[in-house]
């Protein structure tokens, strides 16, 4: 089992560091270009949420990202130091006329994550929120 750990301050510029690391971890795991893009996007969304909603952009609060390669499984845990959240909505969310009229232009992140990974788990307490993403190596078609 190989583990890569990364801690960043709550500044979105450092989300790019996590994303670049994710690409290399995905490549080391043997992912195709397309799945590496899926992985980068899912992790980008999770890290931006940890920064914005979890740590409320307080630079002193960290976002911790752990990549674990375990046989056929790649597990990524993204944790923040926020106050925690009751529940997170991961239902399908698409652009529609009503949202555009209302100027509601956000809210796609969790839905995208849930579509892009094989398995998504959310655990939250008063000490913060942890998103666990799991992706499996697939048989070549």
């Amino acid at each position, binding site marked *: 089992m190989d583990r890569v750990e990364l801690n960043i301050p709550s500044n*979105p510029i450092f989300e790019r560091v996590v994303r670049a690391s994710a690409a290399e971890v995905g490549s080391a795991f043997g992912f195709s270009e397309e799945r590496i893009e899926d992985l*980068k996007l899912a992790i980008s*969304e999770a890290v931006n949420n940890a920064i914005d909603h979890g740590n409320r952009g307080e630079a002193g609060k960290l976002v911790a990202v752990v990549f674990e390669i375990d046989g056929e499984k790649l597990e990524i845990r993204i944790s923040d130091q926020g106050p925690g959240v009751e529940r997170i909505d991961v239902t399908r969310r*698409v*652009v529609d006329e009503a949202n555009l009229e209302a100027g509601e232009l956000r809210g*796609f*992140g969790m839905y995208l994550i849930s579509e892009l990974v094989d398995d998504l788990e959310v655990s939250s307490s008063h000490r913060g929120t942890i998103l666990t993403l799991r992706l499996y190596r697939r048989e070549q078609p």
Partner: protein
Amino acid sequence: MSDIIRREEFGEVAILHVTTTSVDAISAAAIAAECQDMRPITVLDFSEVSFINSAGISALLKFVVSARKSGYKLFAMHVSPHHQKIFKMVEMSRFMPTIEERDLAEYRIAS
């Protein structure tokens, strides 16, 4: 003038070439700012873009809202297969369909 968008205009058409590789939380504001100044046919060119996340999509939706308000047409050009997939997932493609270089050429000639 943003250095994140390079503009090209002819007649009714504006092509906005996105020159950053990453349409994300960092570049979103500078990109969204350009939606103040659209033309009846506005095309976003993603040929240099390798990454778009939901913070970026929110910025692009400002163009959608602005186009709808003005009755303008909005297109996307040179969207990678991966980003086409993502745009389909969130049905962005309904509001910002892709246009081919050659179809755009017709507008160029017409103008």
